[in-house]
């Protein structure tokens, strides 16, 4: 039994992994301790949690332009989310995903932070514009 979610055509390779979900927004500069691979902003719902290797499911992007470089830098060190799944991203996240060849999709029917739960196993196919929830 799986559930298929449709989204806009995305960026990066197809991947399978585990979801980490919050209704918060995202900026690599504002929110992350990129050395430890954890959320460092005290007010972020995911504060203290590790993002390495996870599929981050969040609402939208916030703030500055640094994320465009940072996703690439994080990926070369291997301490990086496996993929980014958002309701709607801004240009910086799209540019960062394109530059870093990181899997990213957005624009679903409905609120993706409600449709997906932390711990769900997901298969993301950016070229097809689909996210499959494998466990339910």
């Amino acid at each position, binding site marked *: 039994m799986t559930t298929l979610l449709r989204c*806009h*055509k*995305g*960026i990066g390779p197809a991947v399978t992994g585990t979801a980490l979900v919050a209704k918060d*927004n995202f900026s690599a*500069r*504002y*929110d*992350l301790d990129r050395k430890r691979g954890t959320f*460092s*902003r*005290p*007010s972020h719902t995911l504060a203290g949690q590790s993002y390495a290797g996870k599929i981050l499911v969040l609402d*939208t*992007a*916030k*703030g*500055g*332009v*640094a*994320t*465009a*470089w*940072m996703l*690439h*830098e994080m*990926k*070369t*060190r291997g301490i990086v989310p496996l993929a980014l799944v958002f309701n*709607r991203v*801004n*240009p*910086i996240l*799209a*540019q*960062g995903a*394109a*530059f870093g060849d990181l899997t990213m999709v957005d624009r679903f029917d409905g609120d993706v932070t409600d449709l997906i739960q932390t711990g769900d196993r997901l298969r993301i196919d950016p070229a097809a514009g689909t996210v499959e929830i494998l466990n339910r």
Partner: protein
Amino acid sequence: MRLTDEEQAMLAGEAGEPRRWAIRHQIAVGEFFDAADLIPVSQAHIMADTESLGEAGVAFLETLATAPEAERRVQIPTLTDPRGLDFQTYKRLGQTEAMATLEARTIAALKSFGVLMTDTCINYQTIMPPTRGEHLAMGDTGVVIYSNSVFGARSNFEGGPSALAAALTGRTPRYGYHLDECRRPTRRFRLAAQPRDLSEWGALGGIVGRECGSYWEVPLIEGIDSPPGSDALKHLGTAMASYGSTALLHIPGITPEADDMDRRPLAGMPAGRRRSEPIGRAEIDVFVAAYGATGDKVDVVVFAAPHLSLVEMAAVADALAGREVHAGTTLLVATSPEIKHAADRMGLTGRIEAAGAIVAAGICFYQSYAGEMAEANGWKRLLTNSAKLVNIIGGYGYRPTLLSLERCVDSAIAGRVV
């Protein structure tokens, strides 16, 4: 996406590897946003601080810079956003030789593309203000919102790789704020109180930005009595862009497109799109109070983010009024190299540094290894009049407080929050 013959040639590698990489990147981004084609741009502005680039980003620039000169030269005037390190001040700020080495490598690579090292986020005040309708590839959120809103120019947020790509191709994908349909107001706000200083203009930007909460929302703000001037709009816009990822705002009577647009749809804007209550004194005070810390020891006072105009530099010098900064507190002022030269010439730098403060050129604090500086100097409590900075700096382990310029200076002298 539709590509011209020249663009097809770039994609085929006929114009060299840097332009092939650039246009491929632009097509990936453009297709993600359903761009129909690429549009010529007249300026690019690259954010390339070394903390964000890391070794990987610097190595990427250096590899691209090995192409023959004809293949790597930028095609349009291309400026830089603040750097990670000022070679004149980095030792005093606790930055390391490794950071300086990475910085020097980045500067060498950027120069080899023909980039103009302006190192500033206030290029719209100091270098080349955009004009209405000009399509741009601006690489700093504060620069984008000011260029779009105050001048009526057209830019999306262009992160470092994308701004470099635009510089190399002379184009950018046509989506977002290049398109008329994205520039109409989607949210409506009304003011019932006027911000009293730059920190409060930033607070207003923070309130509106937080409520908009998305790059694709365009706020219209009514009730601003009179034109507040360039520095106030600068703080309003940078804070709004920081809190909300906002890229365009309209103010009737002040910003050009607000007055030219068809205002009839605004009257019928659905209730959810209109803030029901006006933003008043209480809202501004609550926003500022959330960062309050009266009585706390002050570790560092920062005037930056955005860079200070010459007028702000003079205001800092005047506020210091010949007094000395407390021995346990660092006061840092960051501005652009152009303004620093002017401030040197006019004696402002001398007056500020005579108080024991540091004037840095071309850095903007949060882009300058803020976490490492906090560790090296034992900094925790940070005071600033920049709402943008208080929003960002918490993630780097600081406890930020937002106050007026004058109260920041008084606190720096007292060594505690007054």
